[in-house]
């Protein structure tokens, strides 16, 4: 039923969106994610969906706001500089409790930065994807297959908790080709608003008018809205964390890494194991909520933790917070679009005493 196809990560994301019932896609070209738009511009008209190239990232995210507000599954994608432009809209989407999926195929920054793979938007996506008190769901796949699988999950949880979900990929994952399997027998069915009684669909003279809004001029009312939202976030934290542990059972050094860097970390750990070093990899799949319990479990025998990222060290903050500074945490990373090599990570493992 499911045959393996060789696909680019970006294409897998796009195809998976259609299979998740994403009816509308609103995009704007930017390297290295443009294949998503190109793929959907071909596919969407054939499955009764909508592809629209907007005049800017700002317009695209606001089209998502309107479409999601009418209860229809929709998505936008971009890369780092474009995501910055979308943050206004994302804040409004969060403030109006709307579900949608946003893809960030990260590239080097700040500013125009570069077009090579990077992971320097971790702080942005987990801390401040727009103004105000809110969170978004953040998924960090590390293979093309996982890119595809995560899309369905992202749409489902976005709907369940009425909040935006972000898939945080990077140029490496977006551009690499790997075999990916889709369920060929599954029916492609575009979403409708039938299970979203809050949506602005036209009231058909059968109910009061629905209002999609994030404005509350009474401070107490706004506070109550935010508190309610944060109660929902507590449920997300309790139920939706995802992580992969690789050889952490006996690991004295745990390497924490996400996305494509986790693949490099695994290679480094394999090299370390060959040298008799007990190392393992902790790979968070959800970056918000952060898999705090899973990390602590993975580090039960750890003497030290090494965080590796394609940035100057951003997730390292969350690792320290999650471990409550119980275990020393060190960092090794490359930035600006440079991909670290397994040997660099191995050297750091050795430097941390893993060779003793």
């Amino acid at each position, binding site marked *: 039923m499911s045959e393996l196809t060789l696909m680019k990560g970006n294409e897998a994301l796009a195809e998976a969106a259609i299979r998740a019932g994403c009816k509308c896609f609103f995009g704007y070209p930017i390297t290295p994610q443009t294949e998503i738009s190109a793929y959907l511009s071909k596919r969407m008209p054939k499955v009764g969906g909508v592809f629209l190239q907007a005049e800017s990232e700002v317009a695209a995210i606001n*089209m998502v*706001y309107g*479409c999601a507000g*009418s209860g*229809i599954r929709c998505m936008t994608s971009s890369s780092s500089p474009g995501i910055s432009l979308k943050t206004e809209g994302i804040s*409004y989407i969060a403030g109006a409790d709307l579900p949608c999926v946003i893809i960030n195929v990260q590239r080097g920054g700040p500013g125009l930065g570069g077009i090579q793979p990077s992971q320097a938007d971790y702080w942005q996506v987990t801390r401040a994807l727009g103004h105000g008190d809110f969170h978004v769901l953040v998924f960090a796949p590390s293979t093309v297959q996982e890119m595809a699988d995560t899309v369905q999950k992202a749409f489902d949880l976005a709907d369940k908790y009425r909040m935006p979900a972000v898939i945080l990929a990077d140029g490496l994952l977006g551009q690499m080709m790997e075999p990916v399997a889709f369920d060929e027998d599954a029916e492609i069915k575009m979403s409708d608003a039938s299970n979203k009684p809050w949506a*602005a669909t*036209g*009231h058909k003279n*059968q109910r009061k008018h629905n209002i999609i809004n994030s404005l509350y001029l009474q401070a107490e009312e706004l506070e109550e809205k935010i508190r309610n939202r944060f109660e929902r976030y507590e449920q997300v934290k309790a139920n939706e964390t995802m992580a992969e542990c690789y050889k952490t059972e006996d690991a004295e050094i745990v390497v924490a890494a996400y996305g494509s860097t986790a693949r490099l970390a695994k290679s480094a750990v394999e090299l370390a194991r060959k040298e008799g070093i007990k190392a393992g990899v902790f790979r968070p799949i959800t970056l918000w909520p952060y898999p705090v319990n899973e990390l602590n479990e993975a580090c039960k025998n750890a003497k030290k933790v090494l965080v590796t990222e394609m940035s100057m060290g951003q997730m390292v903050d969350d690792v320290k917070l999650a471990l409550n500074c119980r275990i020393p945490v060190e960092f090794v990373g490359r930035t600006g679009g440079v991909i670290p090599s397994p040997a660099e990570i191995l050297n750091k493992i050795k430097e941390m005493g893993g060779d003793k």
Partner: protein
Amino acid sequence: MPEFKRPHALCDVPLHYCPGCTHGIVHRLVAEVIDEMGIEGDTIGVCPVGCSVMAYDYFNCDMLEASHGRSPAVATGIKRANPDKFVFTYQGDGDLAAIGTAETVHAATRGENITVIFINNTTYGMTGGQMAPTTIPGQITQTTPYGRNINVEGFPVKVCEMLSQLDGVALAERVTVIDPKSIMNAKKAIRKGFEFQKNKQGFSIIEVLSTCPTNWGKTPIEAIQRLKDEMIPYYPLGVFKEGAVR
């Protein structure tokens, strides 16, 4: 003799606008058109940031509140997902012709089947009367205390004239609401806009020259006079483009 009462599509609540502000008249006209076409249950409105930010509490149809200037993009998202619904935006001059210029121009040139109600009162009302993109040369505002100087602030944007150059536009008409005759004419224009939308014939914009007595520092009746004397000569009323684009 016919009765005159509040249209159903206008919620039975007090409006928060200042005395004599013509927003209320335009709200009622849009609601009357919705009533007359019998489309309240199939209409989705988008309101802006500005004085009419809370228009979602006033229209009885489903409503979305957009961020500043983005209403045409929000409306596009709704309309593309729901091509058989009626979608309108209600925007002021700062929203539509300054921060939202790109969204306005591109929704128009795509020929989005939406209807834009554009309130031009030559000032940013809600924030206290600063210069708008439509502030007339010489006009005193909070941020042009010596009058708008074309050598410093440049010239106003004539929205209908500009949009009438775009192929996606089915209707670009400038109207006003300063007396019963102009009000009846404004309503006809709004109706035309919704009819173009009904027939999926392109983008429609109805620019309504409006007053802001509070920030103009005038009584409501003086404000109407200023609109006649200063605005209409600069922003002539009339149809700038009309005809199905598809």
